[in-house]
C-alpha cells in the first residue's frame, strides 16, 4: 500500500505507528514533572499571586483604583476583554471549521488550541465581571431575572446583554466539544495507569469509554453536528462583541464594518497565540513529529489571510470616514493617526498589517524562530488595535472641555498580569495532566498520511 497522495507531505513524520502515538503522548502525562515545567508553573503562579493582590484591592476599594475617568470610561478592562475573547476564537475555529472542511492538519493541534480557547475565555470573562465593581450584585443584574423593584427585566435590546448570552454559550459549548474529544484519550491513559489514584481519576474522567464501534459512530455524528453548531457560534461571538461598539453613537465605533472586521481580527490573534503556545509545547514535550513545520506553515497562511483582511478593514474605515462626509467621523480617524495616541495607531498598523506580510516568503513562514517572534508581534498589535478603537474614540469627547487622556494605574497593569498568570497556570496544568494531542484522531491518520509505507 502507498500513502494516499504522493504530493502531500506526511502529517505525522518519522514513521510513527499507532502504538508510538500512545507512547509519545501518554509518556508526558505519566512521567515525573520536568524541572523546566515546574519552573514555568512557578513563574505563572507568581504572576497569579502578584496580579491576585491587585484584583483583591480592586474588589475591596472599587474600580476607582483603575485609571478610568469621566471621559475615558472604558479602557484597559474592555481592551483586555476583547483581546482575550479574540484569542479564544482559534481553538473552536480549528476544531469546528477545519473539521467541516476536512482539513486533517487540524488533528494534532486542535486539542491544545481548544484548551487555549477555554482558558482565554475564562480570562476574558474576568474583566466585565470586575468592571461591575460589586460583581456579587452585578452578576445577578446580567441574568434575565426580575429585580427587587418589581418585575422590570433585563433589556434585550442591549448588545451588552447579547454578549452575556454569546460568551457563556460559547464557553460552555467549547468546553463540551473539548471534553467529548478528551474522553477516548482519557480512556487510553486510564488503561495504562499503574497507580490507584491516577486509575481512579482517569477512570472517572473517561466515563467508562470502551471504544465500541457503535459509540464511535455516534461520537462522529456528535462531533460533526457540534462542529456545524460551533461554526456559526464562533462567528457570532465576536460579531456580538463588535456590536457593543457598533450599535453606539460614538464616532469611530459606529461602523457597519465592525462584525467581519472583528471576526477576522479574532482569528488572526487566535492563530498567533496558538502558534506561540505550540512552538513552546512541541519543543518542551518533543512533539516535532506531530506538530510539523507543515502545521506551522498552514497556520502562518491563515495569519497572512486574516492579517490582510484586517489591513483592508483599517483602510476601508479610513475611506468611509472620508467618503461619509461626517466631520466627527473624519476627525476621529485623523485623531487616531495623528493625535496624542498616534504611537498606538502606528504600532497597530506595523504589527498587524505590515509585519505578517513577511509570511509571503516561504523561508520566513517555515522558520520556527521567525514564526515565534511574528506571532508575538501580532498579539501585541491586536492588543493595540483594541486599545486604539476604545481609548482614542473616547478620549476626544463631544465637547472640547471634556477632552482627556487615559493613564493606566498599577492596578490596570496588575489585572492584566493576573489574567496572564491564570492563563499560563491553566495551560501548564493542562499540558502536564491532559493529553496535549488528540491521540484517537491522530491514530486514525497515521496509516494514510504517515511516512511509513505498508507492504
Amino acid at each position: 500500500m502507498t500513502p494516499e497522495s504522493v504530493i502531500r507531505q506526511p502529517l505525522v513524520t518519522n514513521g510513527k505507528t499507532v502504538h508510538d502515538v500512545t507512547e509519545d503522548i501518554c509518556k508526558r502525562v505519566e512521567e515525573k514533572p520536568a524541572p523546566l515545567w515546574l519552573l514555568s508553573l512557578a513563574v505563572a503562579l507568581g504572576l497569579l499571586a502578584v496580579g491576585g493582590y491587585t484584583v483583591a484591592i480592586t474588589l475591596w476599594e472599587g474600580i476607582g483604583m483603575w485609571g478610568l475617568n469621566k471621559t475615558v470610561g472604558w479602557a484597559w478592562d474592555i481592551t483586555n476583554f476583547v483581546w482575550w475573547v479574540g484569542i479564544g476564537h482559534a481553538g473552536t475555529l480549528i476544531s469546528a471549521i477545519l473539521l467541516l472542511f476536512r482539513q486533517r492538519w487540524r488533528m494534532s493541534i486542535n486539542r491544545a488550541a481548544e484548551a487555549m480557547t477555554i482558558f482565554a475565555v475564562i480570562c476574558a470573562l474576568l474583566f466585565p465581571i470586575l468592571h461591575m465593581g460589586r460583581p456579587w450584585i452585578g452578576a445577578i443584574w446580567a441574568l434575565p431575572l426580575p429585580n427587587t423593584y418589581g418585575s422590570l427585566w433585563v433589556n434585550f435590546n442591549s448588545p451588552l446583554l447579547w454578549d452575556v448570552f454569546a460568551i457563556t454559550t460559547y464557553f460552555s459549548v467549547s468546553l463540551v466539544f473539548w471534553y467529548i474529544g478528551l474522553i477516548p484519550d482519557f480512556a487510553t491513559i486510564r488503561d495504562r495507569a499503574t497507580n490507584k489514584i491516577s486509575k481512579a481519576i482517569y477512570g472517572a474522567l473517561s466515563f467508562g469509554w470502551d471504544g465500541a464501534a457503535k459509540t464511535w459512530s455516534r461520537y462522529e455524528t456528535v462531533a460533526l453536528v457540534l462542529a456545524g453548531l460551533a461554526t456559526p457560534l464562533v462567528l457570532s461571538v465576536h460579531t456580538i462583541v463588535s456590536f457593543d461598539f457598533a450599535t453606539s453613537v460614538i464616532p469611530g465605533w459606529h461602523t457597519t464594518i465592525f462584525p467581519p472586521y472583528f471576526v477576522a481580527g479574532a482569528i488572526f490573534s487566535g492563530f498567533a497565540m496558538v502558534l506561540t503556545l505550540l512552538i513552546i509545547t512541541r519543543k518542551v514535550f518533543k512533539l516535532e513529529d506531530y506538530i510539523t513545520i507543515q502545521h506551522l506553515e498552514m497556520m502562518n497562511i491563515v495569519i497572512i489571510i486574516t492579517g490582510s483582511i484586517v489591513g483592508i478593514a483599517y483602510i476601508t474605515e479610513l475611506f468611509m470616514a472620508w467618503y461619509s462626509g461626517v466631520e466627527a467621523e473624519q476627525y476621529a480617524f485623523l485623531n487616531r493617526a495623528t493625535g496624542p495616541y498616534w504611537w498606538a495607531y502606528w504600532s497597530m498598523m506595523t504589527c498587524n498589517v505590515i509585519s505578517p506580510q513577511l509570511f509571503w516568503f516561504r523561508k520566513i513562514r517555515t522558520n520556527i524562530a521567525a514564526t515565534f517572534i511574528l506571532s508575538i508581534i501580532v498579539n501585541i498589535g491586536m492588543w493595540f488595535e483594541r486599545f486604539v478603537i476604545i481609548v482614542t474614540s473616547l478620549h476626544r469627547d463631544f465637547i472640547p472641555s471634556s477632552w482627556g487622556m487615559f493613564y493606566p494605574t498599577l492596578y490596570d497593569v496588575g489585572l492584566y498580569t493576573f489574567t496572564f498568570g491564570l492563563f499560563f497556570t491553566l495551560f501548564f496544568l493542562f499540558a502536564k495532566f491532559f493529553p496535549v494531542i488528540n491521540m484517537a484522531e491522530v491514530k486514525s491518520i497515521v496509516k494514510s498520511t504517515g511516512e511509513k509505507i505498508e507492504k
Partner: protein
Amino acid sequence: MSQGSDFLVGIYDDEDVLLKGIKGIRDGGVKIHEVYSPFPVHGIDDALGYRRSRLSIAAFLFGLLGTSLALTMQIGMMTVDWPMIIGGKDYLPLPSFIPVTFELTVLLAAFGMVGTFLVISNLKPWAKAKLFDIRVTDDKHVMAIDLSKNDLDEKAINKLLVSNGATEVNKKNFDEL
C-alpha cells in the same frame, strides 16, 4: 447459563484487515457482538450493518426547543410583562431578539445532543469500562463474538476468525453485559 456469556475475542492490528475481516465473518454466518477500536474506523458502521445515528435529529429538536424558549422568554419579558419603548424600538423588537435566540438555540442543541449521546452510550463518570482486551485503547482492534448467540461451535468460529485476519484469538467470560 447464569455464569454469564463466553466470548471469543479476535485481535486485529490493522483497520483495513479488520474491515475485510468483518465482512468475511458476517458472510460466514457468525453474529458479531461488537467491535472495539482505539480510533474511529471509516466505514465500520456500514460493515457491521449499523444504522446511521439519529443524534442529529435529537440536536435539531433540542435546537427547536431552544428557539422557542428564547422567544417565549424575550417576548414574555419585553412585550407582555413590562412593555417599554427603548431607543425608539417597538414593543416587540424582533431584530433585537435574534442574537439571544440564536445563542440559546445553539446552547440547547449542543447540550441536548451531547446529553443524549452520553445517556444512550452509557457514558458516565462512575461507569466502569468493560474491556475485552486492555490494548483496545492503545493500538488493537478487538472483535467480540458471543458464543451463546451463535449456532456455530467455538472451533469453527475460531477458525473463521484466524482465516479472516485476526492475529490472536482469546476466550473471555463476562458475568453481565
